[in-house]
Structure formats: C-alpha cells, structure tokens
C-alpha cells in the first residue's frame, strides 16, 4: 500500500458518541483537498469500557486503522506513542482527545503550511462547541442534547464549514496571546521521532501537562519554527473529559496537572512566549505575529 502523505493519531477513551464523528471529520468526504489515500487515521483506544469497532468508524475512502492500548491507564501518553510508532505519513498530527471534530480545512492547511519550513511545529486552534468554554457552559445547562441541536442547526457534517458559528475559541491568553497547547499538533514524522514522542512520565488523567510539554519541547528543539494555523482547528464535544468538562473539579484537576508538570519538568506551566508565524490558508502565506508576547 502506498504511504499516505499525512497521518493523524486519534486517542479515544469512552467516546462512543463522539469518536465516530471525529473520525468522520478526518475522512476524504469531509476534508477539503484530501482525496482517498492522502491521509491515514490511526485510532488508538485507551481502555474504553466498550471498545470501539472498526465498522463503527468506517467512512467512504477513509484509510483507518484501529488499535487498542495494552494495559491502558488514565494517561493517553502510551497510546499516543503507540500511534506515533505506527504512523507512515511524512506529516503526523496528534489529537490527544478524540472527542474533537476537525474543521474541514485542517489537513490541507497543515500540509500546505508544513511545506513552508523544514522543521515546522504546526499548532491549530482549540474550540469548544457551545456558547462558552464547556466547563462554564455546563454550569448553565449545556449538555449533549443541546450540542446535538447545535450541530443539527448547521446541518453538520454537510455544514461543517459553519462550525465556528456554534463554538467558542479557547485560548490561554487571548487570541493574540501566547499559546499554551494545541489539541491537534502536527509535525514532520522525523521531528516526532527526534523528540521521542510524548513524555511517558506524564501519568495523570488525560495526560496532564503532556500536551503542553510536547509543544514546549518541540518549539525549543534546534531549528524548529512554531506556525499557528489561523482559523483551522478542532472542536471539543461534550464527553466528560478530564479537564474541559470538569466544572466542579476543574480547579483541583488543574492544580494536580500543574503539580505533576512542575515535578517532571522543574518549571511551572508557561505558554510559549514566541508566538511564531501565522499561516493563513486563504493567502497560503506566513506572516509574523505582532503585539505583546
């Protein structure tokens, strides 16, 4: 079988409602400029009570492989690294949380941006479906039924280009501020290999600060360039995740994540000060970010 240009590693855990939608959002019929064979999706299930089945995730033209992480723990890091070891594409993306729908231009934009630098670190936008960050909107009654109604209101998946109309951008320090993490992070496979994948010492629920650490290490590696992909990203579906859907335990979970991060790295969690370059899919060009940093 010919090697795909792009591999996307998607991690799942008890996402029977969300995972099929996520996988569909990465399929050729949904992604623009992504004919069959250009991208493979590697789903690694990290210990779901009811394991997903290949037939539940099938989509026309999709190159999909489904794997199960042995001895799955609360952290997805080992599952991510298993997925990375299986990736065949020259460009590899990791979605640490498989409950996130991709924007329809995600793969094409990342592929185009990757050609503009020899060692790109491609960070995409994090969104939450709904009127606010979900740990807040849940307190006002936002639930899966409302989320389904919102998706129906834009005729998703046909109306996927309108996802941003029913979602909230989630930033650490504002849209123009420094980045903390990206939930769909793309890099050349050689760079993932060089960095050794995700740090297996992050054993906390949801991987704790592993995603933050990954972006920091990638940006600190010699010769790399952070490239933020404007307006393309992933949209979090409500599923009871470790942090995004933890309204009453979010502070405690955040505190534990912070403590683990400090214990492992010896540094407090900080966003990436260098805001890098911005790739705009419309023009296909990179531009230097301006403003505070």
């Amino acid at each position, binding site marked *: 079988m010919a090697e795909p240009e792009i591999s996307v590693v998607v991690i799942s855990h008890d996402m029977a409602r969300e995972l099929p939608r996520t996988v569909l959002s990465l399929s050729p019929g949904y992604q623009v400029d992504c004919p069959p064979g250009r991208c493979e999706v590697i789903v690694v299930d990290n210990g779901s009570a009811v394991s997903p089945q290949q037939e539940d995730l099938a989509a026309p033209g999709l190159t999909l492989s489904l794997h199960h992480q042995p001895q799955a723990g609360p952290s997805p890091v080992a599952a991510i690294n298993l997925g990375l070891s299986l990736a065949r594409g020259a460009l590899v993306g990791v979605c640490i949380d498989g409950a996130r729908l991709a924007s329809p231009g995600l793969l094409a934009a990342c592929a185009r941006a990757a050609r503009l630098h020899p060692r790109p670190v491609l960070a995409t936008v994090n969104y939450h479906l709904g009127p606010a960050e979900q740990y807040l909107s849940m307190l006002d009654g936002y639930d899966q039924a409302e989320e389904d109604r919102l998706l129906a209101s834009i005729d998703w998946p046909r109306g996927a280009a309108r996802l941003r109309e029913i979602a909230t951008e989630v930033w650490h320090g504002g849209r123009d501020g420094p980045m903390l993490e990206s939930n769909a992070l793309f890099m050349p496979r050689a760079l993932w290999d060089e960095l050794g994948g995700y740090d297996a010492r992050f054993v906390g629920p949801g991987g704790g600060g592993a995603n933050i650490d990954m972006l920091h290490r990638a940006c600190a590696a010699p010769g790399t360039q952070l490239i933020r992909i404007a307006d393309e990203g992933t949209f979090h579906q409500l599923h009871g995740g470790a942090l995004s859907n933890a309204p009453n335990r979010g502070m405690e979970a955040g*505190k534990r994540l*912070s403590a683990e991060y400090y214990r492992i790295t010896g540094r407090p969690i900080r966003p990436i000060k260098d805001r890098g370059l911005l790739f705009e899919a419309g023009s296909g060009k990179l531009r230097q970010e301006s403003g505070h940093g």
Partner: protein
Amino acid sequence: MSDDIAASRRIVQDWVVRYIAAVIDLAPEAVPLDTEFREIGVDSAEVVIMTGVMEEEFGFEIDAELPFRRATIAGLLDALQEAGLVAA
C-alpha cells in the same frame, strides 16, 4: 522541603511574591500583598497553576479553591498560617 517542619511565613511569602513577579513581569518589590490576584494581572488559570507548584515546592496540600476565597497574597498566607501549613 521537609514534611515535618512548616516553612516560615516569610519564606513562603517571598516565594509567592517572586513567583507572581515572574508571571506578571514586575519587580518583586512592586508586587502588592493586599491586592486581589486578578487585579494585579494573575488570572484564575495562573492561580491554579501556582497552587500546584506551591504544593510541590513546600510539600503541603492546599484546597484548590482556597486562593479564590482568600484572593490576595496576604490573605492566602493568613489562611495557610491558620491551617498550620506555615509558621509565623
């Protein structure tokens, strides 16, 4: 930091001041003790992050919501002292 000996208030306060000074890019001596965290530019996420780091640094456990109920440096130190986690 030993689990058996509570850190002195002065040591913990100096640490918090230096930590916040680094976050908001201010000289430590300019960090006010009696102004709420959010008013000096430390948002809720930063407060949560600081709380986790404090636990690791000093070896005690803090209720994650405490810095929101006692939302100044002085107030937080008072609460830690009342709980016996720092010594006068």
